[in-house]
């Protein structure tokens, strides 16, 4: 187990390295045109451009420039998103601080909807599998397909229209004056976003729980259990469920990590000031350090989630052995 973890950690570092290279290339080297000129605005005599180039290190050799950005990826206090490099080109705000202020919004959004989609997705999956080929099963399958097929941004606006404009039951999108990420919960600001995310994601869970359940139920040890006279309820809920939920852990971990780093569309539709919206807004201003910062944080989440998922997986499923 220990060696395995070390190997996974080393792999995580490799991933972060690749990310650093990719983000550097995409955000600093790919955009044609002169970054310094972009920052200079109206006054762009050669001397000012020179100063700006010097300030953001564009006058250095390319590997030095890369080094500046790459150092910020080391998840260690002195290095992590170094404020000297990772600050907004448009308003000089330090990316690290801004991400810290925004991440609670993204976290509440993600965790809330994860709870909701598990509550919806898993039971439907179980019922579908245990009542196979009944109308309930058909209904479950159709629900899954509808959810997978819905464009989330469109669903978001439809929900806002119905529940805010028409019925007036829920507040509009956007956080109001004086609300924090915490009080916004009680003002119902996340509800529609949770629902939209949950509807489109629960479907995946329904599908996977149903599939796994069907597979497990046909396995030998379940048949043995049944033969021993253990009640069907017990068979389903004690033995089959446990085995079929383990893959759900993997998925959940990766989904949550993915959303923490990139709930761009849902945050845009519901105007939640999370880090996805931060990245999108910064892209609109060609302000790349925040986008790079968010990308790096997102990658870190995914790497960590992979690690955690592996550990939890081992704990849940005794068949898994690491070497």
């Amino acid at each position, binding site marked *: 187990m220990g060696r395995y973890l070390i190997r996974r950690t080393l792999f995580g570092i490799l991933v972060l390295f690749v990310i650093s290279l990719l983000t550097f290339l995409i955000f600093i080297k*790919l955009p044609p045109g002169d970054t310094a000129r972009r920052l200079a605005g109206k006054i762009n005599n050669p001397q000012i451009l020179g100063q700006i180039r010097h300030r953001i290190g564009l006058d250095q050799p390319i590997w030095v420039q890369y080094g500046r950005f790459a150092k910020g990826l080391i998840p260690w206090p002195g290095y992590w998103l170094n404020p000297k490099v990772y600050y907004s080109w448009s308003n000089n705000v330090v990316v690290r601080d801004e991400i810290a202020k925004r991440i609670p919004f993204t976290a509440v959004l993600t965790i809330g909807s994860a709870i909701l989609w598990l509550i919806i997705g898993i039971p439907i999956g179980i019922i579908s599998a245990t009542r196979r080929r009944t109308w309930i099963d058909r209904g479950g399958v159709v629900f899954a397909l509808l959810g997978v097929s819905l464009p989330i941004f469109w669903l978001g606006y439809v929900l806002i*229209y119905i529940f805010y404009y028409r019925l007036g039951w829920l507040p509009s999108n956007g956080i109001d004056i004086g609300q924090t990420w915490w009080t916004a919960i009680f003002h119902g600001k996340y509800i529609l976003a949770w629902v939209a995310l949950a509807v489109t994601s629960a479907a995946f869970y329904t*599908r996977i729980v149903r599939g796994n359940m069907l597979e497990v139920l046909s396995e030998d040890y379940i048949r043995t259990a049944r033969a021993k006279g253990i009640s069907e309820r017990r068979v389903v809920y004690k033995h089959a469920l446990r085995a079929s939920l383990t893959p759900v852990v993997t998925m959940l971990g990766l989904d949550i990590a993915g959303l923490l780093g*990139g709930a761009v*569309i849902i945050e845009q539709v519901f105007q939640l000031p999370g880090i996805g919206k931060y*990245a999108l807004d910064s892209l609109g201003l060609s302000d790349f350090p925040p986008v790079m910062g968010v990308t790096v944080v997102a*990658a870190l989440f995914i790497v960590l989630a992979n690690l955690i998922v592996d550990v939890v997986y081992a704990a849940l499923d005794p068949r898994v052995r690491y070497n």
Partner: protein
Amino acid sequence: MAKVEVEPDQLQPAPSAEIPKEIIGRSPGEILWRRFRQDRWAIGGIVVIIIIVILAITAPLFARWVGHPVNQSYVSDMTGVGPKIGIYGNALGFPKGPTLHNSAGVFPFGADGTAHDLFIQVLYGAQTSLEVALSATLIEVVLGVAAGIIAGFYGGKIDTVISRMCDIFFALPTLLLILGISAACGGQRPGEECLHGYLKPGKGLIVILIGFFSWPYLARIIRGQVLSIREKEFIEAARSLGSSGRRIMVRDILPNVLAPVIVYSTLLIPTNILAEASLSFLGLGVPPDVPSWGYQISQATSLYRTAWWTMVFPGVFLFLTTLAFNLVGDGLRDAFDPKTA
């Protein structure tokens, strides 16, 4: 989050490529079709897809028939006069809704914010959507199948490299990277495009971005399939007859992984349709003069309270199309693998 890339879970319950052999006298295709045919939902999906494809292909005919070329504005005919704003005069420019009697002809879906015929725009949107999604799927299938077969067949170091590469791809925040590249390369004039002209703005860029970032999912599945096939007797036989590796991969292995390839590429199509729509919704997809459902929906966001048609028609078309492909993909999966049906 919009599922811009295929969720790994879609791909986990790998269907078995083995077709039950005890039924004699029917070809595997026949068996498949008999099973698939019983799935009324999937048949419905096929019908919807056929209709959408026909509508997309015949969009220019419709445009000629109603006399409204794509991207043509009918400002004087299809925008209305709003209320008087105090002393400041009437507000103008509100799109008119669906009408069969207009000085400029028939507008079954009404007009969008730029006074285009929304019906024609939506039909052309189908063209864009299918074109981008199918091309991106093709890239994914080619790359994914090739990488998967090579990794599974050769094993060893080659396998390790390809598998690690896939792992790295899975750990990338794909959406953010796609948005970044699209923002950087989406507006360059001829002669100064990204990567010396290989990444030209337009539909092609979006196709490449979507395709490039999601092939590893398919590669991983195919690799798994190939690993089990590799040990089968007929491969051993081919080997002992002196067939080259390339020949075995193409002649013997490829046909045996076709089933999962078909299922998963069908399921990739709706994902790619949503991916294109999401990017265009965010303003980082196809150029604005290429009709796209995602772009039409983003234009509708400030209009739809008074002009419902601008939101409803592109949205419903987008939803129906993805649903249809998902129904068919699901039906195919069940047909190939009745265990989970």
